[in-house]
């Protein structure tokens, strides 16, 4: 049996060696990406090709990514938080998990696309939209919803899908949009959210999780980021995209360096690159419907056409970051259980 144990120990040592071999290397970068792989991968692959820096990334919904970064505060495992709505970055800055860094593009970015101290900067802008299944609308003789109140129509009962605020930044952006159109009156906003709950069939883990069921017609509609909604349409699903007349929020998509990052130089290079036209001009090329944050990059014409008459307001990172935790907890306690 002793030999058996020597073998066991040998196997463990081998495992350890493999582990060490994969984690230790020089020009590397580790990132949590909140953008789904479809959007993050082409960007990060381009970065890798242009700089030779090897990027390891793992995709999480924004709540998950934020929770992990906070939990790993004393021993950060990643260098960069890549993509994801501004409220997540606001909350992260409040928790003190980011290292301030101002890339060259910092000076030209609009104030809402950067944290004053450089805790984060924006790499894109991403409005929310209403997306509904076209056949469902035709069957029920409905127009695409033009108002938040339209989503309360009985035809949508148990028919909407949207993201779960525990995991998804899309959901949190949606909730802050409702707060804004109600003049930040939390009582009124939560009253609306609770009524909307009756029409929601499923709160999905990821922001884009409901797009496929809506595309297939298994769900009637939902509230999504435009990047996910237009992709669903581009794949060939028959969906309608509309905006509420009261307005809807748009989230600056951020990037930030993690405090205590093990590869700070690589992290800065990625932030420089992602906040510059070098990356943002690739959106159109890869048919990714983010609105560029950098003023020198033009919005792709078909995307600009969709957004032309929409009333869109930015989510305020300071307000959202300061209240995110409390609002999410209130949503979990009051809205999620239903009646």
């Amino acid at each position, binding site marked *: *049996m002793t030999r058996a144990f020597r073998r066991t120990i040998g196997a463990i040592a081998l495992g350890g060696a493999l582990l060490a071999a994969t984690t230790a290397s020089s020009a590397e970068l580790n990132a949590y990406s909140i953008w789904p792989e479809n959007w993050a991968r082409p960007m990060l692959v381009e970065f890798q090709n242009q700089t030779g820096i090897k990027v390891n990334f793992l995709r999480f919904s924004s709540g998950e990514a934020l929770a992990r970064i906070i939990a790993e505060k004393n021993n950060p495992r990643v260098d960069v938080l890549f993509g994801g709505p501004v409220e997540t970055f606001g909350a992260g800055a409040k928790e003190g998990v980011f290292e301030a860094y101002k890339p060259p593009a910092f000076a030209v970015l609009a104030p809402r696309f950067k944290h004053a101290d450089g805790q984060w900067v924006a790499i894109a802008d991403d409005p929310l939209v209403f997306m509904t299944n076209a056949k469902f609308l035709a069957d029920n003789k409905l127009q695409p919803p033009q108002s938040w109140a339209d989503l309360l129509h009985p035809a949508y009962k148990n028919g909407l899908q949207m993201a779960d605020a525990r995991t998804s930044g899309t959901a949190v952006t949606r909730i802050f949009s409702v707060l804004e159109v109600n003049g930040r009156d939390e009582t009124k906003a939560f009253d609306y959210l609770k009524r909307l709950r009756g029409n929601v069939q499923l709160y999905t883990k990821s922001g884009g999780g409901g797009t*496929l069921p809506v*595309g297939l017609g298994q769900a009637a509609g939902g509230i999504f980021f435009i990047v996910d909604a237009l992709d669903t349409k581009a794949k060939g699903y028959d969906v309608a995209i509309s905006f509420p007349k009261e307005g809807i929020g748009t989230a600056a998509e951020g990037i930030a360096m993690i405090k205590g990052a093990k590869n700070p130089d690589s992290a800065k290079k990625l932030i420089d690159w992602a906040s510059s036209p070098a990356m943002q001009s690739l959106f159109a090329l890869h048919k990714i419907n983010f609105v560029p944050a950098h003023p020198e990059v033009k919005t792709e014409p078909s995307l600009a056409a969709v957004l032309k008459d929409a009333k869109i307001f930015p989510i305020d990172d300071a307000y959202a970051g300061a209240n995110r935790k409390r609002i999410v907890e209130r949503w979990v306690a009051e809205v*999620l259980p239903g009646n």
Partner: protein
Amino acid sequence: MRRAALGRDPTLVATLVVLWSLLALFVVYPMVVLLGRAFVDEGAPSLGPLLSVVGDPHHRKAFVNSLLLAMLVGVFGTLLGLLFAFAATRASLPRSWLSAFDAITLLPLISPPFTTSIAIIFSFGPRGLITHDLLGLTGTSAYGLPTTLLSETLTYFPIAYLTLKPVLASIDPNVEDMAYSLGASRRRVFWTVTLPLAVPGLANAFLLLFAASLADFATPLILAGNAFPVLPTQAFLQITGLFDFKGGAVLSFALLVPAAVVYLLQRHWVARSHYVTVTGKVGPQSGYKGTTPLVRGLIVVGCVLVALVVLYFYALLLFASLVKAFGADNAFTLAHYYAIFSEGWRAIRDTLIIAAIGMPLGGLFGVVVGTLIARRDFPGRDALEIVTMINYALPGTIVGIAYLIAFNDPPIALTGGAAIIVACYVFRYSPTGIRATVAQLQQIDPSIEEASQSLGARSGETFRRVTLPLVLPAFFAGLGVVFIRSMTAISATIFLVSISWTLITVRILENMTELSLGPAAAFSVFVVLAVFAVTAGVSTLLRRLKAPGTAPISVFGT
């Protein structure tokens, strides 16, 4: 020589010290930390967190729903398993039919547990292929109890089938024959002879399915919807989205109670099931008379229908992996397969490395513990057996959350590495190897080993040269189980993946909860094929290694 030998047998002592240290670290410690989180509030013992869950109507509803779902999955899964087991042992079907049934029931066992749920989203609901396109129904929903139940039942009924087949096969037809010759009707024989003999097996199957359903958060995550919240999914979202360790620990504890009850009941029934074979060896078949042609026909039709449904779901999955965008653009493409082998390669590589490290460790651990339990008498043997079963018996969600909480911070910070995932597999899935070893050794006379020892060999040498060759099949069975679970399990390990180590199943779930259905389907097809190949290989090896006169070992460890 046995108990007295403890002091004079340094190998045994050393082995026990190592085993107990490992079990203390990877089984006992995480559970203690989990309970500590759930029951200690600001340094003082408190029932507050637990009471707050009990007092929360949403959580109470989720708890009741979980038990209801697990109960229904247990009942329907056991019935389907019984149907197939009856067809396999009592319907005198041709061999080719039986092989076909076996192959089809294998599919759910060798795929990640939530794969059918994608197919269900396509099939039911307002635009579902079945409810709308085929049946023309309107106003249906793809979400809720019915579809979740269907998905979990189809996923887990093969466990019941594998459990019940040997039970029915071991009921001596001569006992039934005797009843007939005493003038009993077919129905009376079934109700008074066959069924009572099968009851322990049925109970065991029910409890296995109950536990499997109780652990499954992924299927309800996709299918249950807002109308039917269940506890495992709520605990998962609480932990993964909010890193609310306390809330997650308390919700886990709420799951732990029914799981522990089920485990104790199961031990009770399994212990009784040993008495099933009254006469020892099954006598010569006199031809089974228990079924009329009508009943036989109904059973076969039932099995064929279920098999077709399973095949339909997997065909749909294959189709989804080969078209550009299911339901919108059904043009053929291999792009999703290209994607999983390029973009998804890291997940595949990590999974295979972790499986490669975990397999020999899991196999060895099973054989060493199994041999000790079956062959040696030492203080604390029963305790050792029970502790090795804990991580296996508990729902994976609890084990995963316990590992995450216990190993996230110093003194023992392991999260982020491969070791914690390997440890999770080894200590969660080795009981199959342990039980296979025990079963194997019980069929081999201990005098062979005693002969070796009396000829002067020490216990280490005896183990290596005598026992090891005898338990080699159990070793490979343990190995196979770890591989299958590495490729298919998710409930525990989803909490343990990190930037450095990720797993295929986690990628599939992530792809499914985003919108990349094609890669999710392609990954699933890959897993089914890989696991099928390895299972076939290991099964062939096991048949080769099978000592004459011993019972065959299954890699599924049911």
